[in-house]
């Protein structure tokens, strides 16, 4: 499925520009085991879009179950297997698998590979004026290691006992005694961590070493800055999870007891473990990764949004330096806030006080970034095209996600809200209408550059409007349910609890909204494939942008080396509507006129 559009991408490149030095490359070298950062970026993009859809479909099954617990899933229920859904009625065990794998797939296989693997790979070398990534072979390896990790995760559904079912957080000791799927999860994670390690090293070295002449640090587009900070987070936060994964694998396979406390009873029997381990240790190691991971998800989205806002307001970003310093500060701080996920574990008030303080501090740079982007809109003559609509919606949506996080970051209020639907609503506002809207904004923005064809604005706007309505229909009621105290992991949606009764009617509403959101994606899918084959030809600089990726390359960029000559950079990234100039924008690589 993915081959035709890649073929078309390259064939336009040849037809339009005819850079033919690499004709001798075989199909496999060029499209499958390619070392060109653009092809690898597209590979990442298509693979992670498939995973995004797959993870969403897992959630659609769960939403069916929550809307009408115990009723047979129509048609699809026949294919889920007797072990998971006898007669089409979902079993609790299967619901747990879906929950764990929805989280895992969305975070590690869909959003991060999309926003770092695809956008980082494709856009960063173009924006800094580099011919490729610093290590092309490593780049290829990182994609294929990711691919293998994804396959392991998918195959785990067919193991006896199904896929991992201990939540995406895999808390011990439950995960240590869980079915075989958890072992597959751990092995899959080791692959994904290795992939992101290789990828993040590559991005950092590329940004440090391969900037074009004149591309100083303060002339980097904000997208590049956000990818740089993100890569440092991936580089330094993932290894502790790898260590934790190794330890849990040792517990499960070899029988050590790193995470197994002494005298643990399960179903009335003492487990055969030496004991003396610490269950909290897993949570510390896990959240040491998983909190920086939140910023891995959101920082590149900030980067994408910044490019699009500057481009479509036709004026420079407000507070570029503040954005840069806030991004770096955010990166540092994200390493010392992890235990705010653990206020309920009894780790003590002193530690809680420390982590709630750092958590309040980290909200400052987030607010600075959001405010700077908001003020950037002021006084601009805004072009409301599809990427800009998604970018504009990102601001309030991420704002809701961020503000609802404050009560979770404060220990006293968290005690009430912990593990309720409020938490689900909070982080989905950050990631779904936040980051995923950022991803869509980026796809609509770079699509003409990548394929050489324009997408349909009408279909894009329909996609935007319906997505925005339905996504709020899913996530906003979660706050109401969460405040009423509905726990997040109940497979019947909370029917057995009387305190949940007044808010249970929202379950059906949210599920209809989720089905609507699924239907709204058809606009995108149709638009995507139709535009690849039949879209009108895009100009070389489709959005009249100033950055090198748009201004200094052809659409699509030439196969090897990206640029005809190494561009020289003369100015900052967002010289829109410069006073006294004839054009409405001054690209970074255009030499100033002789005085």
């Amino acid at each position, binding site marked *: 499925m993915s081959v035709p559009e890649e073929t078309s991408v390259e064939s336009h490149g040849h037809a339009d520009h005819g850079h033919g030095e690499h004709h001798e490359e075989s199909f496999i070298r060029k499209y499958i085991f390619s070392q060109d950062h653009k092809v690898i970026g597209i590979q990442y993009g298509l693979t992670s879009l498939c995973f995004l859809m797959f993870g969403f479909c897992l959630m659609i099954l769960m939403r069916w179950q929550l809307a009408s617990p115990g009723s047979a899933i129509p048609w699809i229920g026949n294919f889920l297997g007797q072990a998971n859904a006898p007669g089409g009625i979902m079993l609790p065990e299967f619901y747990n698998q879906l929950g764990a794998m929805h989280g895992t797939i969305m975070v590690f296989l869909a959003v991060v590979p999309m926003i770092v693997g695809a956008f980082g790979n494709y856009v960063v070398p173009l924006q800094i004026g580099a011919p490729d990534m*610093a*290590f092309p072979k490593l780049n290829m390896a990182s994609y294929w290691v990711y691919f293998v990790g994804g396959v392991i995760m998918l195959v785990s559904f067919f193991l006896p006992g199904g896929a991992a079912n201990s939540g995406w957080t895999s808390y011990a000791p439950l995960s240590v005694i869980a079915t075989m799927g958890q072992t597959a999860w751990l092995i899959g994670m080791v692959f994904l961590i290795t992939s992101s*390690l290789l990828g993040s090293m590559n991005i*950092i070295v590329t940004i440090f070493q*391969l900037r074009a002449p004149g591309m100083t640090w303060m002339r980097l587009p904000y997208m590049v800055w956000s990818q740089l900070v993100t890569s440092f987070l991936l580089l330094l936060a993932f*290894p*502790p999870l790898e260590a934790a994964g190794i330890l849990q694998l040792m517990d499960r396979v070899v029988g050590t007891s790193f995470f197994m406390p002494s005298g643990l009873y399960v179903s009335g029997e003492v487990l055969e473990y030496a004991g*003396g381990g610490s269950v909290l240790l897993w949570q510390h190691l896990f959240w040491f990764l998983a909190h920086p991971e939140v910023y891995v998800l959101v920082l590149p989205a900030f980067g994408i949004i910044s490019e699009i806002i500057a481009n479509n307001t036709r004026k420079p970003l407000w507070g570029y330096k503040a954005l840069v310093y806030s991004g770096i500060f955010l990166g540092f701080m994200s390493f010392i806030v992890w235990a705010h996920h653990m206020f309920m574990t009894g780790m003590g008030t002193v530690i809680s006080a420390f982590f709630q303080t750092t958590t309040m501090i980290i909200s400052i740079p987030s607010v600075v970034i959001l405010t700077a982007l908001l003020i950037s809109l002021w006084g601009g003559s805004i072009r409301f095209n599809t990427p800009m609509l998604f970018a504009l919606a990102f601001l309030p949506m991420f704002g809701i996600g961020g503000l609802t996080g404050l009560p979770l970051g404060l220990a006293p209020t968290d005690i009430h809200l912990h593990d309720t639907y409020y938490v689900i609503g909070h982080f989905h506002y950050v990631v779904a209408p936040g980051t995923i809207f950022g991803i869509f904004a980026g796809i609509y923005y770079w699509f003409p550059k990548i394929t050489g064809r324009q997408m349909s604005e009408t279909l894009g706007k329909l996609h935007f409007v319906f997505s925005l309505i339905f996504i709020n229909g899913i996530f906003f009621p979660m706050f109401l349910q969460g405040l009423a105290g509905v726990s997040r992991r109940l497979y019947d949606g909370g029917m057995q609890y009387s305190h949940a009764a007044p808010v249970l009617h929202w379950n059906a509403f949210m599920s209809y909204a989720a089905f609507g959101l699924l239907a709204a994606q058809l606009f995108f899918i149709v638009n995507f494939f139709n535009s690849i084959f039949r879209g009108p030809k895009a100009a070389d600089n489709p959005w009249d942008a100033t950055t090198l990726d748009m201004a200094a390359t052809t659409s699509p960029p030439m196969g090897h080396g990206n640029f005809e000559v190494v561009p020289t950079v003369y100015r900052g990234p967002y010289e829109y509507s410069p006073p006294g100039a004839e054009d409405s924008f001054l690209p970074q690589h255009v030499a100033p006129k002789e005085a």
Partner: protein
Amino acid sequence: MEIPYTVEPRPDTGLYNAKLGIWLFLASEVMLFGALFSTYILLRTGNPNWVQHPMDVPLATLNTMLLISSSVTVVLAWAGLRLKNFAQFRKYGILTLLLAGGFMVIKGFEYSAEFSAGLFPWTDNYMAVYFTMTGLHGLHIVGGMVVIAYLLGPGAKMWETEPERFTNRIEVFGLYWHFVDLVWIFLFPSLYLL
């Protein structure tokens, strides 16, 4: 267009690409082993019934000497290439490989002695930490041995075509090797002596 700074350093960073790459990789390795050392500290201080089994300190001391020596020989191998003396590189490269192999053989004797004494990873958490950390470190040694064996064997052809790039490869390998030694320098006292 060629990728710049694969061999010569970039003026403003002072590094060629692979050297920055290996430093970043080592930073992530610090975090990996850092998490494991933290685990060790947390489990040991949190468990009032912690048992520290007596380990074979003389053998481990010998192993420490072997690894430190191999750190010296890998530098001498690199220095040989800098002096355009391929024979010196060969001699000290092979010596490095032998010292690393010696380390692994001694480690194997230690493991088998522990197994025959009835000490297994699942015996208690001290043994679990011991086998996991030394095992992961051993994997790093084996990985390094594979790389230096390749650079001494088929990889050495690059000396004929791109001598500077080949010298850089040995330097990058050397940085990795020093790190692996350094991990052992931490493992030895914390597992055997303290």
